[in-house]
């Protein structure tokens, strides 16, 4: 076979300079890690996820950093098998209780949705009920969330706080006071 691609074929790195043979230890190490990650996730149901009838899509300049932030700081859980990646961006779905948020990249070519970091304004707030807002607040504060309203009991029956994430999206985290009382009384 000889054609325009020959220079490229010959430039395959291991044809120019043969690689050392693959170290079997590398593969067995990766295999072991892979298998232990399966053990943790193996029990997870592989059935179709139930997506709520309404769920927001938030835009970030750096959606990869946002994914890391939202899971670390706010404790959201990613639907890892749903993640879509390509050269022009990533889409991810994050689960909180029975709710879902979707995150993607900001910009005209991404449904024209802007990150507050680009728009210079926040145009919505996402409200989230969590199981233990005290613990949630402590974690978010410790991980560096920008708390913009302190944790307080409100007259409408919620304990809540509000925080901005890495690009300025505003999040409202709450727990019903009746739930707080039940939790504290054990």
């Amino acid at each position: 076979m000889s054609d325009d691609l020959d220079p490229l074929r010959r430039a395959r790195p291991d044809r120019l300079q043969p690689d050392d043979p693959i170290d079997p230890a590398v593969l067995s190490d990766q295999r072991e890690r892979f298998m232990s990650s399966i053990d943790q996730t193996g029990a997870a149901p592989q059935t179709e996820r139930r997506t709520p009838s309404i769920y927001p899509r938030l835009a970030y300049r750096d959606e990869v950093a946002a994914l890391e932030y939202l899971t670390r700081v706010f404790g959201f859980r990613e639907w890892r098998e749903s993640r879509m990646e390509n050269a022009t961006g990533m889409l991810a779905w994050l689960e909180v209780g029975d709710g879902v948020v979707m995150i993607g990249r900001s910009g005209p070519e991404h449904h024209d949705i802007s990150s507050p970091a680009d728009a210079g304004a926040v145009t919505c707030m996402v409200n989230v009920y969590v199981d233990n807002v005290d613990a949630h607040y402590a974690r978010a504060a410790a991980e560096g969330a920008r708390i913009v309203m302190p944790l307080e009991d409100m007259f409408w029956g919620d304990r809540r706080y509000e925080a901005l994430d890495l690009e300025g999206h505003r999040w409202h985290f709450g727990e019903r006071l009746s739930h707080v009382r039940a939790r504290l009384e054990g």
Partner: protein
Amino acid sequence: MEPTDAEIIGASFDDPAAFAAIFDRHAAVLLRFLVRRVGPDAAEGLVGESFRIAFERRAGYDCTRPSARPWLYGIATNVLARHRRAEARRLAALDRLPRPPADALDDQVVEQIDARELLPRVAATIAALPPGERDALLLYAWEDLGYDDIAAALGIPLGTVRSRLNRARRRLRELREPEGAAGEQRSTHSEDRGRIGS
């Protein structure tokens, strides 16, 4: 008879550990692919990541395809998209390879020397390709995948594979023409936004 990949993936729904057989069959090939693209250090972790993603996405596997290899190539290609910098470093390292000694001039070595003469320009051409073209081209020329398997791997229509490879061929053909004749063609293709190193 050995079960097909599709059968193993099917069985892995009830028995996740069965997926280990997919790793055993394809991990070495995938690792070599990743080494070619990003070098040995970066490739190591990426092979594990690719299989973890494959496992999580196994519900989406098209069970009419007996071999999982194109599917796995596609997943690994997606993983590479987040490591363009490592890939750029790998390409830059290519043209710093030592040249073979001139006294061992058998055919193979002559070919190698020829390849190395062109190498800096080949490496630069690969680096300048839009990612979609580069991915399709290297699956074809380095991994010997057919058009159909590339289409399956990248999740694109067959016609798109053809047009990407044709564009890439044209760019490579220009390498063989004398400097200047091909011109420093600046592509204004919109996919260029994702270029390596830019």
